[in-house]
């Protein structure tokens, strides 16, 4: 049987790099291990370049179950970029916490591989494989800082809840397979062309279970309970990686499966999704207000942002899909950047994650504080930053689709979020004391990651046109 390997290239490249890292890890001495970070970055860079060489193509492999379209490429680049920034910001953190570098980088690469699989899968089975590859790697990453009791607890919690969610998902897939006679998304969509009354009831049960499984992965309320504890226990770079990468992967799946292929059933799942969006935004923001730790606040804020993203799914169609993809783009630099600043405050065994540790940072480390202010203002949705642009198009998609009320709920939620995002700024500029933060000389790569976040936040806010076109083109390639 002839297999078309071209579409697999970026994913395969990541897999190859991960294996190289694992192998090299055996031969390198302890002090040479940071070399592995460069191998990973190099591999990611090559994969990134490949996505551009493959650009514009529309190919498939494995009997149409693995697709290479603009949508898959968009997310491949996204995940490769996120993994790259995560690796950059991890270098110093790993040295500080004595987390084993070989396994760590390999696992980041494995999970990025899984994410690409999820975004490219045109069959539910392959989607599930990608999801599990990603999840297993992230479970391990969560618990990698073994000296810390919180890490073990977080990993265990994440694993159990994740396995539970996987159960829902797999059962849903099984039911859909039973109803449609195929796991291929195209054929499932084709089977929907039969008259509505002939659709078996368990098809809806399957879709409902799939829906819940995905809601767990994006941490939509009420399936969010694991998030704060897991993010807090996980090493900070991993928390950032989860907040952006894992969430985006689940949204990629949601977009491809629900918005594109199951679109005929849209009327069935819009209402629950609407409720989910409102709950996720509101509870995420309300709970974020009362947090004392910045890292936990960021965890709840990531829940709230999942809520905004769900607005795009409710709005659906071209406007919603484009806004969703664009929002993910804007969400990545500011969230990764904020987590990187959290890392920059860590000194030795002291995590320095509470608000009061940020006191006076504005005058001790002007760059860190300036960057963090930008990220906070952007997350809160102040123009002309990326977060505002993202929210603008998400709200617009809701209004255009006739859900003005959802846009109003979103706007009021942004107001709520201002309270806790500004608290960080209050601390940094209007209080005294607190932690010192790392200097550039100590952690240059971390600063580089933060700088990337700053540039992304400003660029997407000021000149979003190109990214919007990219998001639009990627979404439209789905049909």
């Amino acid at each position: 049987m002839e297999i078309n390997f071209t579409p697999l290239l970026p994913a395969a490249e990541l897999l190859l790099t991960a294996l190289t890292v694992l192998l090299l890890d055996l031969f390198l001495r302890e002090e040479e291990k940071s070399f592995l970070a460069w191998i990973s970055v190099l591999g990611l860079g090559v994969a990134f370049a490949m996505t551009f060489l493959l650009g514009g193509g529309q190919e498939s492999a494995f009997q149409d179950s693995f697709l290479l379209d603009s949508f898959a490429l968009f997310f491949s680049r996204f995940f490769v970029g996120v993994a790259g920034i995560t690796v950059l910001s991890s270098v110093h953190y790993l040295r500080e916490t004595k987390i084993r570098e070989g396994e760590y980088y390999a696992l980041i690469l494995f999970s990025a591989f899984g994410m690409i699989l999820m975004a490219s899968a045109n069959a539910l089975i392959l989607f599930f494989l990608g999801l599990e590859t990603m999840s297993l790697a992230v479970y391990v990453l969560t618990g990698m800082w073994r000296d810390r009791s919180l890490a073990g607890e977080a990993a265990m919690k994440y694993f159990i809840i994740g396995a539970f969610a996987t159960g829902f998902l797999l059962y849903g897939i099984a039911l859909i397979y039973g109803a449609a006679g195929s796991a291929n998304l195209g054929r499932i969509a084709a089977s929907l062309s039969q008259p509505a009354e002939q659709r078996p009831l368990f098809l809806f049960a399957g879709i409902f279970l799939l829906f819940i499984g995905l809601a767990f992965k994006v941490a939509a309320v009420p399936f969010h309970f694991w998030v704060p504890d897991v993010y807090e226990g996980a090493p900070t770079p991993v928390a950032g990686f989860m907040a952006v990468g894992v969430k985006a992967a689940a949204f990629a799946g949601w977009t491809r499966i629900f918005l594109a292929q199951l679109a005929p059933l849209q009327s069935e799942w819009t209402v629950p999704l609407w409720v989910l969006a409102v709950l996720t935004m509101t509870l995420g923001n309300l709970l974020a207000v009362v947090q004392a730790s910045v890292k936990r606040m960021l965890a709840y804020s990531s829940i709230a942002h999942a809520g905004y993203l769900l607005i795009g799914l409710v709005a659906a169609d071209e406007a919603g899909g484009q806004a969703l993809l664009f929002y993910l783009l804007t969400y990545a630099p500011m969230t990764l950047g904020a987590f990187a600043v959290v890392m920059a405050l860590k000194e030795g065994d002291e995590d320095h994650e509470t608000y009061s540790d940020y006191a006076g940072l504005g005058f001790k480390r002007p760059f860190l504080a300036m960057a963090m202010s930008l990220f906070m203002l952007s997350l809160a949705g102040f123009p002309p930053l990326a977060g505002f642009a993202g929210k603008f198009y998400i709200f617009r998609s809701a209004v255009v689709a006739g859900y003005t009320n959802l846009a109003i709920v979103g706007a009021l939620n942004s107001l709520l979020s201002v309270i806790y995002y500004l608290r960080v700024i209050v601390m940094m500029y209007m209080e005294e004391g607190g932690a010192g933060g790392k200097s550039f000389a100590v952690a240059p790569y971390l600063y580089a990651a933060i700088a990337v976040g700053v540039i992304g936040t400003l660029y997407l806010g000021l000149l979003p046109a190109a990214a919007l076109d990219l998001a639009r083109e990627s979404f439209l390639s789905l049909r």
Partner: protein
Amino acid sequence: MEPFAGDLSLLVFFPVLGALALLLIPRGRTQLLFQTALLFASLTFLWSLTLLWRFHPATGGMQFVERFSWIAAYGIDYFVGIDGLSLFLVLLTAFLGPIVILASWTISERVKEYLFFMLILESGMLGTFVALDLFLFYVFWEVTLVPMYFLIGVWGGPRRIYAALKFVLYTMAGSLLMLVAIIYLAARNFQVTQVMTFDLLRIYNLQLPYEEQIWLFLAFALSFAIKVPLFPFHTWLPDAHVEAPTAGSVLLAGVLLKMGTYGFLRFAIPLFPEATLAASPYIIALAVIGIVYGAMVAMMQGDLKKLVAYSSVSHLGFVMLGLFAFNLQGIQGAIYQMLNHGLSTGALFLIVGMIYERRHTRMIDDFGGLWKQLPIFSACFLVVTLSSIGLPGLNGFVGEFLILLGSFQTSPFWTAGAASGVVLGAIYMLWMFRRVVFGPLSRPENQRLEDLGAREMIMLIPILALILFMGIYPRPFLDRMKPAVELVVQRIESKKAATPLVQGVTQGREIKLHGN
């Protein structure tokens, strides 16, 4: 003279350039930092004067228009221009720029950041007044929030953090709903005209059913009413004013509040004329309540800064009253009063700041008899006080007179109430002035105070000169406003003529938004 493209952009972004230049100067060289900021602010002002020079007084349309595509897929343009409504607000902003930098010379902590935010704030304010694209306007509108937040929160008084957060939350509560309304408006415009645009001048032509207008008007009006601040949305103002540093108060009162009244004039009223007409009795009532209430509360204040803050509530009530008279005199008077308030209240805050720097107290009871010790200071204070009261011959009179003249034609009853506010204004201002300046110089601390220095004179003299000039010779100002104001009045008049139609739906094409 044919204006070349880039005139307004240069004006708006020149302070940003200054802010970036500040970043290159080492932190320790405070004098150089101040001088650079002052240079950029002064050049901005000079540039605004050349715009005034080249402004065609007889044209009602937009001048110095610049436009290029920003986000093409959504029809979002960088689109700026000025007309008679915004011209003098732009000038006022540019005029106050160098003055507030001078007023900040006594800041000793974190000078670099302070001046940085000051210049960014100036750009944001200028941008708000020249933006003609709804998206661009919103961006500038929100951009002003952040530097003001820092100015209050970092360099403010003891309750600065509370005041700064309150300021931001109040303003954002309104503006986020306005954002949804802007999006809705553009989406609706697209449905009707099939043109994706946020261009204000084009959206002016959109005819919406009455019911939709009401909702959209409410969203816009809430945002602007909080900013103005219209009673009962004014509670953030005294806190913000009292805690802000002097320069922050000056800009807050002088310019930021005008963004609210300007918003009504440029956006809420012309975009939704029918809803405006329907809402006008309520707004006029709130404005008059604000006038009287602000004056009465101001009367009871022991803190000079709070007194001036509440007097702002009262004065801005006059502006709202004039705007909602919907005739030439009323609106011209309102714009004139915006300028007056910017000058006289700005000067009052400067004066309170000067006295605070000398005595570290702002309580009226701590003063008395300053006339003997500080003659020049007291003379300046007197002129500003009289201007604020509206003494004929000074600028305040022209504005208030026009407003009352205009609003008397449409709502004589409420105008009578507003006129009583003039009397109340005279009472609280003169009473305050008497207690601070006249009487025996009993306190020993006050006997050692020094009179105004050169820097302080340079700050006050231009303002005093303008106060006199605008009081004696308002023609050049009013002439330049007139054509643009007439356009607004026409727009509303044409709706008034069609009032019988308003019951239910007007001639707007009815296309329902689908879903929901």
